[in-house]
């Protein structure tokens, strides 16, 4: 009788452990939510590969697609470079700006990447890594969609596709422009 009373104890202690395991297995370990989504995008001032200033503050009122890439990031960055260039060309007249930030890269390799893909949107190196840390970047490629009020609305990890670019940018363009 006494033994029966305690028989349920061991299985019962295993229940919360199993529940925790089941919860953990259901999560995607790559899906780490950024605390920056919904918050104002950190201002930065970089110098593009062409030597021109590249500042986020000057783009208030526009939808900004901020892409972090590297020439060694193969194949994802190679897949999305043409997508970003297409998006830039399609939307540049609709107050959309695409900016590229080359991180943890060699200067010449970055320049070659831009030449190889004939990228015409502004790209700048981030030699100190401060901008990438300011945006909580884990790796490349990562893309931040910033609304016209200057807030980060979407963080996209992995290569951006035409559909992701179009859908996200269209959604942000459809929002009313912020008051100046």
């Amino acid at each position, binding site marked *: 009788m006494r033994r029966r009373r305690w028989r349920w104890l061991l299985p019962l202690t295993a229940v919360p452990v199993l529940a925790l395991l089941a919860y953990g297995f259901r999560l995607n370990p790559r899906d780490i939510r950024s*605390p920056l989504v919904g918050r104002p995008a950190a201002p930065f001032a970089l110098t593009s590969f062409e030597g021109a200033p590249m500042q986020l503050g000057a783009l208030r009122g526009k939808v900004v697609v901020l892409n972090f890439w590297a020439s060694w990031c193969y194949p994802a960055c190679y897949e999305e470079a043409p997508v970003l260039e297409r998006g830039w060309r399609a939307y540049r007249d609709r107050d959309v700006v695409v900016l590229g930030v080359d991180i943890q890269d060699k200067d010449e390799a970055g320049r070659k990447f831009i030449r190889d893909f004939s990228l015409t949107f502004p790209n700048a190196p981030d030699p100190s*890594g401060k901008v990438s840390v300011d945006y909580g970047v*884990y790796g490349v490629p990562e893309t931040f969609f910033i609304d016209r009020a200057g807030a980060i609305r979407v963080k996209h990890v992995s290569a951006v596709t035409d559909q992701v670019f179009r859908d996200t940018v269209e959604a942000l363009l459809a929002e009313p422009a912020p008051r100046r």
Partner: protein
Amino acid sequence: MRATVLMGLLLLLGAWPAAAQQPSRPVDDLQAYEIASELRCVVCQNLSVADSPSEMANQMRAIVRERLAAGETPAQVRQYFVERYGDWILLAPPRRGFTLLVWLAPLVAVLVGLAVVALLVRRWTGRRRATPPPVDAAMSERIRRELEREP
């Protein structure tokens, strides 16, 4: 004398904007190392920023030093990274909310284990100490007689 004072004042004023822009304090290496060792290297597997040889970790170490040199406290430096990466950036999860489970679960497991061991020990020792069943008086008397009959 007046010219010297004037020149000194001019030099001080000239240097003021630069000093105001980048207030720099000597950085305690040990303090910078301790902060870096609490931060997760974002491009590594279970390595701290202090231990990783990656470029990203190197840049993060430089940021830690820079922020300490600018006068931030270790807590503020840690908070800077947490605000950008979330609690995930801390190698030791904070003792609050859901991650409190990580700290409490081992303690609970040890307590449950001790309770189970205590129960088992009690059961085993209890069995040994169990009083023997009462002996039938007639049977006892018979055994005594049998023994007396033995040569």
